């Protein structure tokens, strides 16, 4: 059923079709309901928004920026991580910079090159590892460390329902149910002042809804896919899920909604994980040395051995 006489831009699962204005209202409403239902944002926050320059992070920044204007006790800073993936990250960061400049939002950018001495492209030439593994480790490390240094109270990411659904299924397929305990609208499990809480305001919004919102609000740029992501495990799971969604609409919502019912049990079961401080960098770590330092050490050893082979 159409919402009004205006041309519809999207059809919802319940059969309703919404025009531009009614959809924007619906989407904004969904995000604010998510924030309220899961208690994601307090009355006073120094909120960081993890900004890649892609449609999801621009959408969440756009909405939270409006929230901040209505609630001056909620301050917003955009924080971007430049992994140094040529022809991908440089393009998305251009969009990030332009948006922040236009909307007068403070943007801090931290690069792998400055922080670790190498771009991700350079790291992948040295070490034979899955790109997404090493990229994720360093990005989360930097995001947490820099957010803490900036005294941010929380970091909002652009993760949406599709992302969560994929993660849930990936963890099942890999027998990593403990990793699922760290999912949810408030990511992570351990409360520690070394960790900056991550929140996902787009948690209940599908990728298609977010893209539609981004298109209507001028936040959608030309398609740009990370060259490392194309044949990843996540990409395969995504394709399977979307194939199921096409045949059985509502599959993704069902997976996430049923997961939310068992999430408290998972958090309870895995709550006794201990947090240490990395011997090398003093950042939070599950082990004596954190994953970022482990990989930096491997890179150092490989570089030395490559130099020895050359001379």
């Amino acid at each position, binding site marked *: 059923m159409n919402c009004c006489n205006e041309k519809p831009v999207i059809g919802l699962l319940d059969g309703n079709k919404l025009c531009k204005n009614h959809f924007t209202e619906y989407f904004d409403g969904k995000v604010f309901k998510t924030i309220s239902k899961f208690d994601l944002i307090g009355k006073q926050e120094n909120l960081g928004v993890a900004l890649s320059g*892609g449609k999801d992070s621009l959408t969440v920044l756009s909405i939270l920026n409006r929230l901040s204007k209505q609630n001056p006790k909620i301050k917003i800073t955009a924080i971007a991580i430049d992994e140094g993936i040529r022809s*991908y990250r440089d393009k998305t960061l251009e969009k990030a910079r332009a948006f922040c400049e236009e909307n007068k939002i403070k943007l801090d950018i931290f690069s792998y090159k400055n922080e670790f001495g190498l771009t991700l492209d350079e790291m992948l030439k040295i070490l034979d590892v899955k790109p997404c593994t090493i990229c994720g480790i360093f990005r989360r490390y930097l995001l947490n460390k820099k957010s803490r240094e900036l005294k941010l109270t929380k970091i909002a990411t652009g993760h949406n329902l599709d992302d969560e659904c994929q993660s849930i299924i990936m963890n099942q397929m890999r027998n990593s149910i403990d990793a699922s305990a760290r999912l949810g609208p408030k990511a992570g499990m351990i409360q520690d002042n070394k960790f900056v809480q991550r929140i996902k305001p787009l948690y209940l919004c599908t990728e*298609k809804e*977010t893209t539609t919102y981004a298109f209507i609000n001028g936040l959608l740029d030309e*398609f740009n896919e990370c060259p490392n992501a194309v044949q990843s495990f996540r990409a395969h799971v*995504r394709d399977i899920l*979307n194939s199921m969604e*096409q045949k059985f609409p509502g599959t993704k919502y069902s997976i996430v909604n049923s997961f939310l019912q068992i999430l408290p049990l998972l958090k309870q079961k895995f709550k006794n994980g201990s947090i240490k401080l990395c011997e090398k960098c003093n950042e939070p770590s599950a082990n004596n040395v954190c994953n970022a330092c482990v990989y930096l050490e491997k890179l150092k050893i490989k570089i030395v051995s490559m130099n020895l082979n050359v001379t």
Partner: protein
Amino acid sequence: MNKISVSAFIDRENRNTTLQLDKGSSVGTLLKKLNINPVNVIVSRDNELILEDEKLNNDDEIKILSVISGG
């Protein structure tokens, strides 16, 4: 004439293609012909979003935009 000619730009593949479709064909028909899952895309014509049941016209220029996150 019982056929219409529609050109489509598929952003994920960065390519244009032109198809001959039966008159009265919809966006859904176009996506099926291109083997594209409607869940993965939004579709626009003249910079306005259109739904799967929207009828296509001769010489329409359609953009098929991927919803997939880049990274």
